[in-house]
């Protein structure tokens, strides 16, 4: 597939742009933060997104979606990223719907995907058990019991865990933490007995949750992927999550870069616009190159999913690592080039800085993905 949007995708992007700019500027995130909104997103805004059909973008038509593909979802995420819009689209659609599409039984798909497409359910992935992304480092146990399975363990940084209806819990049936084998992805009702959800408030003003499972019950039929082979479907889900997150980061990077360039043109120091100083100009030009390369890897990774290519994993690690690094660079330069004003909470710059770090820590930092890329490429 060519590395350009087709007409339909471009239209979707334009529409998403208009909607987000109108309904969800950065001030919306600021408001959520200042009000200490317990959901971490605006339910009314989410309802409007549902009406626009966004939760169904990647879902096949037979399950109530519009089957627009990951490139379609990507451009929406990118537009949301521009204003750092918080919503359950990542947890529920990018991750949740992907999980169902990739690994649920036909019965479960029929039951859940239309609910997601209709915005009636929020799904969250309970994966991490430590502060750094480590998808096989799972100690949470899933063991058989008289009426199915019992889950016990502690999860951290569960995105939208505090508002989820259903949890996809990565648990171990056999082996030791670190083993790729022995994992199963159980579907657990967030309101079930033995599930204790503690919301956490992150620096990027979004919410996540720590979740303790204390013998919470799960059904052996309600799983994603194969029993004890859950890592296969988990990797596929995570790659979609990484790529979609990279698309969101791209949007934020674009705004951070554009804002900075604009400031370089207008801000006067020593009687000249500061962008006329070659030291800053060269750094801006280097940033331009990094941003351009970032656009390419995101587009390529999205189309890798849509084309069902065999190098989705490489594309995902490439995209996530590069977008981590570029967002890091641009957010630092944005602040430094704005000078003191960038340090004030009144400016939006801090929001981009904080989001850059939380996004980087989500689903693998750059070192994680360089290591993974090298392994995938055989060295």
């Amino acid at each position, binding site marked *: 597939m060519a590395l350009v949007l087709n007409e339909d995708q471009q239209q979707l992007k334009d529409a998403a742009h208009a909607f987000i700019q109108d309904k969800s500027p950065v001030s919306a995130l600021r408001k959520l933060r200042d009000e200490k909104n317990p959901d971490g997103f605006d339910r009314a805004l989410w309802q409007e997104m549902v009406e626009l059909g966004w939760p169904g973008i990647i879902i096949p038509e037979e399950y109530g979606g519009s089957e627009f593909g990951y490139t379609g979802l990507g451009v929406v995420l990118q537009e949301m990223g521009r204003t750092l819009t918080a919503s359950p689209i990542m947890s529920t659609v990018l991750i949740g719907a992907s999980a169902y599409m990739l690994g649920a039984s036909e019965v479960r798909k029929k039951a859940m995907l239309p609910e997601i497409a209709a915005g009636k359910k929020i799904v969250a992935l309970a994966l991490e058990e*430590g*502060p*750094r992304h480590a998808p096989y480092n799972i100690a949470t146990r899933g063991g058989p019991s008289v009426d199915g399975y019992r889950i016990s363990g502690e999860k951290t940084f569960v995105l939208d865990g505090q508002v989820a209806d259903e949890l996809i819990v990565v648990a171990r049936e056999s082996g030791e933490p670190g083993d790729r084998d022995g994992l199963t992805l159980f579907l657990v009702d967030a309101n079930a007995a033995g599930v204790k959800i503690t919301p*956490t408030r992150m620096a990027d003003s979004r919410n996540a949750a720590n979740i303790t499972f204390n013998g919470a019950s799960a059904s052996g039929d309600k799983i994603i992927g194969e029993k004890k082979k859950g890592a296969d479907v988990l990797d596929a889900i995570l790659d979609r999550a990484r790529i979609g997150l990279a698309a969101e980061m791209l949007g934020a990077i674009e705004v951070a870069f554009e804002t900075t360039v604009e400031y370089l043109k207008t*801000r006067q120091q020593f009687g000249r616009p500061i962008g006329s100083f070659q030291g800053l100009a060269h750094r801006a030009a280097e940033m331009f190159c990094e941003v351009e390369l970032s656009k390419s890897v995101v587009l390529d990774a999205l189309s890798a999913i849509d084309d069902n290519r065999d190098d989705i994993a490489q594309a995902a690690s490439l995209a996530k690592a590069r977008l981590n690094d570029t967002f890091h660079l641009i957010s*630092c330069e944005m602040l430094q080039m704005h000078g*003191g004003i960038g340090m004030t*909470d009144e400016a939006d710059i801090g929001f981009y800085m904080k989001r850059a770090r939380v996004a980087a820590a989500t689903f693998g930092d750059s070192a994680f993905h360089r290591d993974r890329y090298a392994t995938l490429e055989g060295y």
Partner: protein
Amino acid sequence: MSDLEQFRQETRAWLEENCPPSMRTPMPEDETCWGGRNAVYKNPDSKVWLDNMASRGWTAPMWPKEYGGGGLNKDENKILQQELGRIRARPALSSFGIWMLGPALLEFASEEQKKHYLPPIVRGEIRWCQGYSEPGAGSDLAGLQTKAEDMGDHYLVNGSKIWTSYANFADWIFCLVRTNPQAPKHEGISFLLFDMTSPGVTTKPIQLISGSSPFCETFFDNVKVPKENLVGELNKGWTIAKALLQHERTMIAGMGSGPGGGGGSGLRSPSVVAKKYAGEADGRIADPALRDSIAAHNMNSRAFGLTVQRTTDEAKAGAPPGPASSMFKYYGTEQNKRKYELLLQAMGTQALGWEDSTFEEHELSITREWLRSKANSIEGGTSEVQLNIIAKRVLGLPE
């Protein structure tokens, strides 16, 4: 017994008697003694300790006695500091008056001004703030716009300042103002002192991306300032400003890592933190790429610390003081920023919490300190300004 040895014994004895036991314990931040008209002493011993020290002029030990200082020479002061350190005494007074304004007054003020302003500084009676930066000026400090018009018997000050630390608690301000708008920008600036309770002065605290801060915006709306409050010559204030700035730069550079070489200690040490959060394998940090980055960082910290030491040794050996402060400001602050980025990388999501009890206190602190570190390379002259200074003044590159 040498004079110095005798001084040490007397000092030790005096401290034993005059430093209250509670002043020999680690100081919580909210017990920092800033003095001033409206000082509140959470711990009454703070006031006792301040008054005792001030009575000997030891809040400003090397200032001349005639202005209330301790009148100590270098060697005596060294002994005083050692003895204070020996009993882990808290600083009796934290004061921009002592750190910044005092040295400038000693160099540039009239005899009358010194007699008037310095003793209350030593005694912690007047708390000062600094009015330098302006919203529009940024790195181009000399482009400041706050003006003081000569109204015959007083100056009329209008304008605003930004990044005035603790302006909302200060009694007086030392302030750069434009007194000649026609002159080239460096030649129309004067150095003015005035009371923060003067009609027309208002302040507004600044919220930073890292949270609340000591910084304020300060506004001047037709503030009347007596003409005798001018320090130095009219329109020659830039000379005083430069002397103060050099001083500030050195202070901020010190925020970076010291000569120890570890690049931070305990829960701020990247290697300690990495072992805790990223795990160990065979006694090593488990993630080899992270380990490599940390080694590179710590080695740079050690090299930087050795350079600070070398510069000090060269100065002691009589070498002319190099223009090192710009290098220290630049490298030290960039290094401190890198340290916090490494801590974030090592700690993952545990260094990205904002509040809630699911994070440990030091974790939440690191998040804020990381954000705060971003200002290091802006305040006190940006990194770009320091690089300009190195290029032009140290290397002699042409304009």
